[in-house]
């Protein structure tokens, strides 16, 4: 493989991995902040225990998200230096402002939240988790604005004054209010809530069932903790699923205008149709990326409706679009060293059909599966019931993974769906003024394949090890459930309390003996 291909694998692996942590951080952070608020408002013990328990899971995951996020910021320079030069005027400032306005907020206030239990006044302490959650949301907005700018570049002009073509920013507000960014941000935020909701449902049901089989009381606080977790998680998941569908529809309709090839590839729609049919299943000749080799089972009219909200409008096919793009942007890459091995080669404007088609369906399918589990959880816990069905409860536990897979599939679809461009030409701009960039031009020219292999393998191995540890820790703390330390607001939020400690919990701030069990 050449540097370009290795670097793409590296970006894909590190980014998808990073995005396993991110939605859990965003979604669970918000839910923990709500739990904490409920505790401060009502003073009820179960809300405190929920805050402590879910807060611990949140933190184990948060730190890995932060750590793997570091790679992203360096990676643009390390492996994609020509991209960084081309887009620096707009892309870099969005990243820097994300760090300044979001990361400081997130990390500083999270530190205060962890160590501030019992040290700072109760309401101020509550404000720290909200500040951290707001920080996460701002961070998500900026990075999605940066990504959306690559999908749909606005607020820039092409500047060739220095000899090298560069994107030059002319309207910062346009970059931040890009309609692609608004849709993608909304979609990602509600999808994050599905991740968190699914986790609450899965772990909560497991504990409820275990307690019931052990004949434990259904009147005590711990029962309330798990029951409430399931109910909150179920409602959040279901509501988020509706919003995921609505925001996804919004984003999809935008994509039909901004990147029609991505959407037609997602449907394996080869020829322009009016009205267009929606594909429910398709298979392709092995190894072929020719649209005409795809056999597809379709439902008429539906695709026109998804794309344009009516049952008759035409939807362009992959073959026509490929032709249009080849005419507009060239049938072959220019014979120029800056295109590396791709120089002079024909350009395939059609993304990898199998990935876009199945990525799109996997995303939707996993979301629907998770919503189904949420509905089951709410049904099976109605009016104080506790489900004991092994299949139901363990199925729900397994389904915790579904929204994670859905999120990853969505990103793989959206990123691979815009190939061969790294900055997609904005169709609203006249051809001569368009700012666009091929992925083949973006890679760093000076680095060797050995270097990128080295980093790809080291990061992949490291990430694999960390994933095993993270999942192990989450499983361990999830199984252990509520611990003695969760009953009082003591500093720190580690879970390493002694279970044999039977002293009555002390409500005052001077629970000093417990402190070391949490703090460093």
């Amino acid at each position, binding site marked *: 493989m050449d540097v370009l291909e290795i670097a793409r694998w590296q970006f894909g692996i590190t980014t998808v991995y990073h995005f396993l942590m991110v939605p859990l951080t965003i979604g669970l952070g918000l839910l923990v902040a709500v739990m904490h608020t409920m505790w401060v408002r009502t003073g009820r013990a179960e809300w405190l225990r929920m805050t402590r328990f879910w807060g611990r899971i949140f933190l184990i995951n948060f730190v890995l998200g932060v750590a*793997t996020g570091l790679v992203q*910021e360096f990676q643009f*320079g390390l492996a994609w230096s020509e991209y960084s030069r081309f887009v620096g005027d707009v892309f870099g400032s969005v990243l820097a402002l994300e760090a300044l306005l979001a990361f400081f907020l997130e990390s500083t206030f999270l530190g205060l939240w962890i160590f501030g239990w019992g040290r700072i006044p109760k309401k101020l302490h509550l404000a720290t988790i909200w500040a951290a959650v707001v920080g996460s949301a701002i961070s998500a907005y900026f990075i999605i604005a940066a990504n959306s700018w690559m999908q749909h570049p606005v607020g820039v002009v092409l*500047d060739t004054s220095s000899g090298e073509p560069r994107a030059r920013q002319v309207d*910062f507000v346009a970059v931040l209010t890009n309609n692609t960014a608004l849709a993608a941000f909304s979609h990602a935020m509600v999808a994050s809530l599905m991740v968190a909701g699914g986790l609450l449902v899965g772990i909560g049901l497991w504990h409820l069932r275990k307690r019931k089989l052990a004949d434990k009381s259904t009147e005590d606080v711990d029962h309330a903790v798990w029951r409430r977790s399931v109910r909150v998680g179920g409602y959040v998941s279901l509501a988020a699923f509706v919003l995921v569908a609505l925001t996804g529809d919004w984003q999809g309709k935008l994509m039909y205008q901004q990147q029609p090839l991505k959407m037609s590839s997602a449907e394996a729609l080869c020829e322009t149709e009016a009205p267009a049919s929606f594909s429910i299943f398709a298979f392709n000749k092995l190894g072929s990326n020719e649209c005409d080799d795809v056999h597809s089972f379709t439902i008429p009219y539906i695709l026109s409706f998804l794309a344009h909200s009516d049952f008759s409008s035409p939807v362009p096919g992959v073959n026509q679009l490929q032709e249009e793009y080849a005419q507009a942007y060239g049938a072959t890459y220019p014979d120029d060293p800056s295109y590396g091995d791709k120089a002079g080669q024909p350009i395939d404007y059609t993304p990898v059909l199998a990935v876009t088609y199945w990525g799109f369906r996997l995303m939707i399918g996993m979301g629907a599966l998770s919503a189904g589990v949420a509905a089951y959880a709410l049904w099976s816990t109605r009016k104080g019931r506790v489900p004991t069905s092994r299949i139901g409860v363990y199925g729900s536990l397994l389904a915790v993974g579904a929204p994670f897979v859905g999120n990853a599939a969505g990103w793989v679809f959206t990123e691979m769906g815009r190939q061969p461009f790294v900055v997609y030409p904005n169709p609203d701009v006249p051809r001569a003024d368009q700012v666009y960039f091929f992925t083949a031009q973006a890679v760093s020219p000076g*680095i060797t394949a050995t270097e990128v292999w080295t980093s790809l393998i080291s990061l992949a191995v*490291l990430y694999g090890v960390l994933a095993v*540890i993270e999942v192990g820790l989450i499983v361990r703390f999830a199984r252990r459930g509520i611990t003695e330390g969760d009953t009082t607001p003591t500093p720190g939020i580690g879970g*390493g309390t002694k279970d044999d400690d039977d002293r009555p919990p002390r409500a005052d701030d001077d629970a000093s003996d417990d402190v070391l069990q949490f703090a460093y």
Partner: protein
Amino acid sequence: MDLQTLWFVAVAVLWTGFLLLEGFDFGVAGLLPVLGREPADRKLMLRTIGPLWDGNEVWLVTAVGATFAAFPGWYATWLPAMYLPFVLVLVGLIVRAVAFEWRHSSHDERWDAAWTRVITTGSFIAAGGLGAALGATTLGLPVGEGGIRVGGAFSGWSWPALLGAVAVLAYSLVHGAVFLSMKTEGELRHRARAFAQRWAPLAALPLLGWAGLVWARYGGLPTGITLVVAAGAVVLTWARLAAGREGQAFTAWAVVLLASMATVFGAVFPVVLPSTIDPAFDVLVTGASVSDYTLTVMTWVAGFGLPVVLGYQAWTYWVFRKRLTAEPEHATVS
């Protein structure tokens, strides 16, 4: 001052701020096997930086982000030229970050000891690697036309890189010791102070050497003065430590870094990355920077955002200002 100069200063301040704040985190972590004789000592040491390290690390993220945002030509030349060192730094930072949070998720002593070693190793790698990167970007990297590295993967691993690595590591270790002596009580406090006092003069040498080399090549009178200030602050640090005034010693040792970095960045300006191949390939502030429009936007946003950030970060330091002891800590409400 034009916008490009302003942003060069901003980037220099961010990198220096990172070295200053994360420096003592690196130092405390690096000293765990030296000063932390008992598990209780090591716990105490880690508690001094526990609530602070993550916020401090954001200074690095912001420094890199600002380098990219204001000078993409610098960012896109510097990082790929030192590809492997930067990857090493990332690995170090990742394992260190997860170790901070994951180590106390078990009461198993071996688990704790293993993660403690990871914190130390990761900190060493990250501090050394970033020092190497900063040394190289101010003393020279083999970059040719178009900012592309000449030579193979290891052509950037040169003596300036080594000097930068040793400078940051040595400085951080003493910085961490002074910080510990300021933040702890009891035996650990005395051990930390004795360590700092013994090693401060020697540990400052590589840093002063780095600043001196940059100054000898590019410097003038103002950076000459800052260099002398840096050297003077080393003596002052030693004297204040000897007098048992840890807070003043911490300030003086901070001045060593601030004055050294002022010398380095002040002297090298307007070059941001000298080429060892040919001065014609030097990366300059003017060629590397973004448009005035973007710099203006960032200046406005940072102008409003930065004071707020500095305000709440200072507040965190205030909340966690107490000296820590190995005794169970008594909660304070401030």
